[in-house]
């Protein structure tokens, strides 16, 4: 099968992540999950290219992305907990203290 049909899958996942961020108006945990989905879709992209090109550096890149994504989501959750402590809500609608 051609490389493009695999790319459809990973790009679809990426777009799902982007849509989730833009159309989600309710809570931040879902947004965190969407960011993870985006990073994983990019990972899949790297792996597809890596097998297609028979080159190892894509796999190394994807392993590193996995690690960074884990660190990123842990920081995100920590920020979320802090935000909940001060505001008592994690809804996006109330994230409007800082406006011009």
């Amino acid at each position, binding site marked *: 099968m051609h*490389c493009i049909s695999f790319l459809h899958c990973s790009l679809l996942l*990426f777009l799902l*992540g*982007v849509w989730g*961020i833009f159309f989600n108006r309710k809570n*931040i945990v879902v*947004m965190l999950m969407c*960011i993870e989905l*985006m*990073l994983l*879709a*990019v990972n899949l*992209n*790297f792996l*597809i*290219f890596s097998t*297609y*090109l028979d*080159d190892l*550096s*894509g796999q*190394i*890149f994807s392993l*590193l*992305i996995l690690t*960074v994504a884990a*660190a*990123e989501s842990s*920081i*995100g959750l*920590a*920020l*979320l907990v*802090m*935000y909940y402590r*001060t*505001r008592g809500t994690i809804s996006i609608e109330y*994230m409007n*203290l*800082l*406006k*011009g």
Partner: protein
Amino acid sequence: MHFFQNDFYFVLPELFLFGASLSLLMFGVIYSTSVSHGKPGLMKVMSWASIVCLAMTLGLVLNTPVHSTVVFSQSLLLDDLSTFFKFLILGGSILSILMSVQYFETENMRNFEYLVLVCLSTLSMLLLVASYDLISMYLALEMQSLCFYVLAASQRDSEFSTEAGLKYFLLGAFSSGVFLLGCSFLYGLTGLTNFEAYALFFAQQSNIYQTSDWIFVQIAFLFILLGFLFKLSAAPFHFWAPDVYEGAPTSVTAFFSIVPKVSIFGVFIKLFFCSFYELALLWQPVIIASGMLSLLVGAFGAFAQKKIKRLLVYSSIGHLGYMLLGLSCLTIEGLQSMLAYLIFYIVMTVHVFACVLALKDLKTGQRIRYVEDLKYLAQSQPLVACAFVLNFFSMAGIPPLAGFCAKFYVFFAALGASLYFFVAVALFSSIVSCFYYLRFIKFMYFHKETSVSVEYVQMDQQKAWMISITSYLLVYLFFCPTNVFLWSEKVALLFLN
């Protein structure tokens, strides 16, 4: 077998800073929790210790024997350009800590992690400007952003600070996702991740315009540029910057507006001028468009702002537009003028934030937040008011000051590269932005309600020195900008050869 045996010598400054920040962390954790010492706050000690660490790293960087070498299987490039940027980054970090020592005390901040995070993010920026591979670049970029998310939210009990941190996190993570997608397409097209390999590849593929891969090249470049412009807070992707910079504590805002611009520009120049120079026709229009939009947003966005920090953010977006203008010339003069502008920008930003951090009302304990709060300044602190005026004139580009020199040089380089329309837009926005700089001055000097007088907290010595030295530089660099220009020209020439 000796893996990377000699490579570790070359990255000695980075290794030193890494060890030093871990030691700072250990020190902080042990002493801040020790009951026998009464759980001390440690902010003052830690800030001086981190300044010393950064200064020693600066010494190591400046005395490096290396002029051009590639280490760690081509993932880091240590050359004069990266030394130049490392100097600016370390200097900016030192100054931004130095100007906020008093702020930590008066605002009762007790989180020493702040300084460890500043050191670690400085380390990541040092690695970022040295990176020579997509993988090392991504890792350094992510390390920098992760430190910044936490720094923005470092005032844990403030609603504004936590909200700023969370907003920064969500948008920053999104932008790095998009950036990574661009990287993955680039990898898929070429099978390469090294910058030098990209340069060789694109130099050979001169007919890539006609192949069916061209659309993928376009998509990849669009996404990578989007990621970079987002991190720079250039115009179509600037919307997060005012919110984050306003919500974060002022010391963090100063750090954010001085240092990361340098590191991102450093890696941007390296990637685009070194690897993708052959494809300049593809990415130059994007830079031009973003630069023009930044100029206009910087000029017009600031009109509606009443808060000082937001206004300064818009002004820095405007300055970014001038730097992008210099960058989009694609010539040595353009690069040189952009590097010189970067130096002038750092001097002006250090100056203005030192002034803003110094002003705290003695009676009410309020910091100045609104532009209107400046109206008592000319009476109670005439010298600070004078320094403010000097800086705003310089930012607006009024002749006997450094800002004029910087702008003039950028315009000159852009005219040389026949970017006439861009220069016209830049001139127009420069004139428009004079308006809001003058509004500051109007509030300070021409607001006659002299019944109330406000006393401010006395400024500490470091800030007084900083303000006076940078004020001196603002005037001096207009009359003798030779050193700055020679230095930036040397770096630009070495780089483009």
